[in-house]
């Protein structure tokens, strides 16, 4: 089987597994919704800067929970099985694409609900949407690789947070800057720098994970 059909099959497998249990999606959705409610009940009304910062903090923890499952939930036996039938490239590509899809869905729902609850819409909504898309893209590429590393290291959740936070902070800084521009309704040409930096970070992380994952996967 060539790479493309392997990737297709693996993504189908992930989607099927998720559809059967609906565990990750529902769990993380509930997590996001209840966090947003807690924030709303404790703040009621916020100024746009706090609104923005809160959104990214909520998304950060939600995405760590959502994406860390991709490798941590699989048993040793199943990992060995996948190792024998699929190439590591196909595996990391399919996991990343699946996580991007999951995160996109999650971010859109969370953003909609968040705007509804706080009754606040950013001045430049299209740019804010672009920023959240880029954010979910970078969260999934980075967290997929870190979750692979921490699952191989053998003690899950704790290590995941320690390893991923320093890596995600630069992305988060750029994201908050970009969304701040969208909230202030600045001219879009101002934000081109941030968008290109996010894209460059994504390409870098993607390339490095593709190169490194085969070494990680071979035990």
């Amino acid at each position, binding site marked *: 089987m060539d790479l493309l059909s392997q990737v297709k099959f693996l993504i189908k497998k992930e989607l099927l597994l998720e559809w059967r249990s609906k565990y990750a999606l529902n769990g993380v959705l509930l997590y996001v919704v209840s966090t947003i409610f807690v924030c709303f009940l404790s703040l009621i009304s916020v100024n746009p800067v706090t609104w923005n910062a809160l959104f990214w903090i909520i998304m950060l923890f939600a995405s760590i929970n959502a994406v860390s499952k991709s490798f941590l939930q699989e048993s040793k036996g199943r990992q060995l099985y996948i190792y024998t039938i699929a190439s590591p490239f196909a595996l990391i590509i399919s996991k990343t694409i699946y996580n991007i899809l999951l995160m996109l869905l999650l971010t859109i729902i969370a953003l909609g609900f968040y705007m509804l609850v706080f009754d606040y819409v950013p001045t430049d909504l299209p740019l804010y949407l672009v920023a959240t898309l880029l954010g979910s893209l970078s969260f999934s590429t980075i967290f997929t*690789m*870190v979750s692979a*590393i921490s699952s*191989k*290291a*053998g*003690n899950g959740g704790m*290590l995941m947070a*320690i*390893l991923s*936070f*320093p*890596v995600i*902070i*630069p992305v988060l*800084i*750029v994201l908050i*800057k970009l969304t701040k521009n969208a909230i202030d309704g600045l001219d879009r040409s101002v934000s081109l*720098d*941030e968008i290109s*930096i996010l894209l460059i*970070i994504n390409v*870098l*992380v993607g390339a*490095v*994970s593709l190169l*490194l994952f085969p*070494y*990680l996967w071979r035990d």
Partner: protein
Amino acid sequence: MYKSWWKILGSIFVLYATVAGFLATVPELPILRESIRNLYFHVPMWFSMIVLFSISVYHSIKFLLSNNAEDDLKAVESINTGIVFGILGIITGAIWAKFTWGQAWSFDVKQNYAAIALLLYFAYLVLRNAIDEEQRRAKISAIYNIFAFPMMVVLLFVLPRLSDSLHPGNGGNPGFNSYDLDSRMRMVFYPACAGWILIGYWIYTLLFRLRRLNKNRLS
């Protein structure tokens, strides 16, 4: 003698930079005054740190290709040395900031990003401690080291350019080379950088040899 010429060169450079750094004439500048001499100590620390971290990435890549345990030891020890230089860089920077900007930690972007970059490498050390099995520890930490390196480059070289910083050369502040790094200062500054890099490399080789001896004695 023909093998240790660079150690002698490094020592002479550092001795010269220390003596000349405190005694040579420097340009009279407002605010900076005599604290400008810190340039000979603060900046070489960061250069040495970056050189040492690059060496460790080189050895991590070599380890993944060869599976030789010595390459892993080299990678760890160069990171250990690099972290010491990074901490010294932060301390010298904080002292300088105290006298010129008024506060040891001025929440300047470069200060914050440098601290985050050090967090990346602390995470690397935590990851090493979390894994017991030697071969596995070497492989996974090598992978994380290579994965983290592009992020450190983004943190230290790309992101600070996006926002205003109190550091020279950022956010409208004139860079050092525009007016005050005149030829007298260059005569001390360049040897200081070369000397500290050589001394850093020397410390790393010493630590590595010590670790190898310890390991051989235990086995």
